[in-house]
């Protein structure tokens, strides 16, 4: 039996220890917003936050997460039933097309804005390069991040991040970095 916190709720889990977090979240906890795209940390559709840091849940074994805290797309709303400012910006800019990658895109964008409340285009390139959108809505995503940035409440901008060093097993995988040369 393993205990993790998901969206603020403590969960007892009885699953095979090598099961990736993605399938636990989706099939055990029935939180279907986090998507399966590639299974090898290449596309970002499965992005969730581990103690506030974006990780690829498809390559993160559940056994490495005992006692840790996970946030999924279902858990980022400001309050019960209200949307995060990033989600609101996504609607205003009409970002999604098929929508399948968007939970992951939003999770990466939220993490970026928490770390860098006023990102430059380069910051956005770096933080979002791990999230593929096959509908190619990158221009709208960029615009929505800038517009969300402008609307972030000041208290969130000023809140220092809790810096919990992730151990090697759960290090953010390809959350930042360059792709395709």
């Amino acid at each position, binding site marked *: 039996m393993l205990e993790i916190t998901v969206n603020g709720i403590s969960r007892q889990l009885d699953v095979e220890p090598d099961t990736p977090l993605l*399938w636990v979240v989706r099939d055990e906890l029935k939180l279907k917003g986090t998507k399966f795209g590639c299974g090898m940390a290449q*596309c970002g559709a499965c992005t969730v936050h581990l103690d506030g840091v974006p990780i690829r849940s498809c390559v993160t074994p559940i056994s490495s997460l005992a006692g840790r805290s996970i946030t999924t797309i279902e858990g980022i709303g400001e309050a019960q039933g209200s949307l995060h400012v990033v989600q609101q910006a*996504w*609607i205003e800019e009409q970002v*999604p*097309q*098929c929508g399948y990658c968007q939970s992951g895109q939003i999770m990466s964008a939220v993490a970026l804005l928490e770390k860098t409340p006023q990102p430059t285009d380069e910051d956005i390139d770096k933080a979002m390069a791990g999230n593929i959108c096959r509908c190619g809505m*990158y221009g709208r995503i960029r615009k929505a991040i800038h517009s969300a940035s402008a609307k972030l409440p000041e208290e969130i901008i000023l809140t220092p991040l809790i810096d919990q060093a992730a151990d090697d097993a759960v290090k953010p995988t390809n959350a930042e970095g360059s792709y395709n040369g």
Partner: protein
Amino acid sequence: MGKWTRRAFLTTGALVGGGLIVGVAIRPGHRTPKLAGLVENEGETLVNAWVKILPDNSIKVIVPHAEMGQGVHTALPMMLADEMDADWSTVSMEQAPADDQYASRDVVREVAFPSQAPGIVEDTLNGVFLKIAQSMSLQITGGSFSVRGTGTWGMRVAGAAARELLIAAAAEEWQVPLDQIRAENSYLFHDKSNRSEPFITFAKAAAGKQGPTQPKLKTPDQFKIMGKRVERFDIPAKVDGSAVFGVDIDLPGMKYACVKCAPVFGSTVSAVDGSSAEKMAGVVKVVNLGTGVGVIADTYWQAKKALDTVNVTYTKGESNRVSSATMFEQFGKSMDAAVANGDEQDDYKLGSARKVLASADKVIEAEYRVPHLAHATMEPMNCTAWAHDDKLEIWSGLQNPLGIRNLLAEELEFDREQVVINNVYLGGGFGRRAMDDYPVQGAKLALALPGVPVKMIWSREEDMQQDFYRPAVMSRFKASLNANGMPEAWENQFVDKHEPVEAPTIPYAVENQYIHYTDSPTHMRFGPWRSVDHTQHAFFTESFIDELAAEAGIDPYTYRYDLLSHDLRARKVLETAAKMADWGKPLAEGWGQGIALHRSFNTIVAEVVNVDMSSGKPRVAQVYCAADPGYAMSLDGFTAQMESGISCGLTSALYGEVNVKDGAVVESNFHDYKVLRMNQSPQIQVEIINSGDRSLGGGGEPGTPPAAPALTNAIFAVTGKRIRQLPVSKYL
């Protein structure tokens, strides 16, 4: 009428002027069981097959197409609501069930256009590419067709007819002439007597009336919703994670399945050893599917791990020796032989191109190649199936639910009525989800475990290696120029003609043209890929016209412009894109500018690419896109489709390549099948030209074809290097 048969449906609904389904009223006692489900409450009245007026006077539009990001679940209701003069803030939609009564083919073919069904429906999705010719009814989403087909001939006509029915009912009730009644925001007004009532007041009376034979459609100056920026219905659920895609289906007691099929198309399973898998925790069953093997287990992860331990041997044949290189060799030989033997298959002939070329002082020649491409939708193929109570129930994201239903019935020996299709959001389609392989697999797995729902999810590797690819194509050109440097003869030979038929034709005035092709089949599966044959042919033709301009020493924009004096609509599109891009204005050191123009699915698109080659590698900085679809019904939706089409075209131009080795696909995931990412994505500007609303073009596909040639033409402009083989990342 009694039972609402198709005949009765047509008799009741057919319009002389090309409308449809108007006046088909579902009244208590006259409901067919299948449509009854759409009429949820006694107070509801189904005015016609496409629209419901609810007791609170809100409007529900029934849309017979799949939503895969193209925005059709919003664009079609916009068209209907505008013609109906409905209050947009009260309009909602529901997706039609996969039922013959919502078949788009019936609508298009037999109601609206008895003699001229758009070829795209017949040919692209049904003819060459799909083996569903036996399916007599389709509900296809593809061919950039939804808005221009269902929207124009279905939604607008139905909306206008509904309005006229309501007005007729009100005129009777109020005892006033029809033309004194106006509709606005879901209310009817008789201004003279200062009377007004909501639509719902007259809904019952309207439903009892014979439909108008020729409902009057609005002209663009009367549009209140069409052509405007409207927020899409499907977006809120796509930002909070609640949208349900095929992969999200969850049924009580459901098991999970993973599959792996023969890596070489045409091979079949000769032996399976699943003994280790069967001993693993959670494994329920190992299933021999004939073309591959599936493992059913309690969880996805158990199924996946167990599948990796199954030993499968496949039959081998000639195809095992095929590679990308041998395919292109074969194409070259087939093309040589066709010319040598004089058995070219004519595609288009004008004047006498061969004769002019034979006597020309100089013949310009070029050969182009494009590789196979995968669709790589974000959501891997998946299907949930449940065989229970003599039924086969399917949950999946499908571009062609009715065709799939018929095919499943036929292939698995069910009656059509026993097969129930639940279509959900598609995590990308691009043509891939018009194919039938994955629902058939899902159904077979479920039939191996009767009574238990089984969710099959493909791995990304399976998705990449079991696709229906955009075919690899070789295309050769010859041309000669007149004294002014303009083309006087144009000969084009390519391998394998598919759809749409007009894909290889050029918009330019060239007096002598000979376009021909040669069949050179391979074992690779192929299928419709965003814009189908247009993607490869636009790259070929728009590159070669650029080569001719360079040969003539004429600016490539001016060259094209001068060749379009007969087609002012295309010329305006070209001119608009050039203006947007400040064509010809000096660029920074190492930057180049390229232009391309192509018409597909009745939309004309020109794109200018600014490329930064200063690092030696291409960085696409800006894309300027001008598009004339006749009329963009959903302003932002159409713009988004252009942006998306351009990204798709650039992805394939820069990186897209599926290689074949020993008969099998080499690429397996996004590490070796690279796609455009945020850091490589250009700024895109789109300008829409609304030239006329009576002949609409599509939106989903036409943005894609010009992107590749505009890019390679830009690279040529700055480097002098002509790229005749894609992807750019490999052949620059």
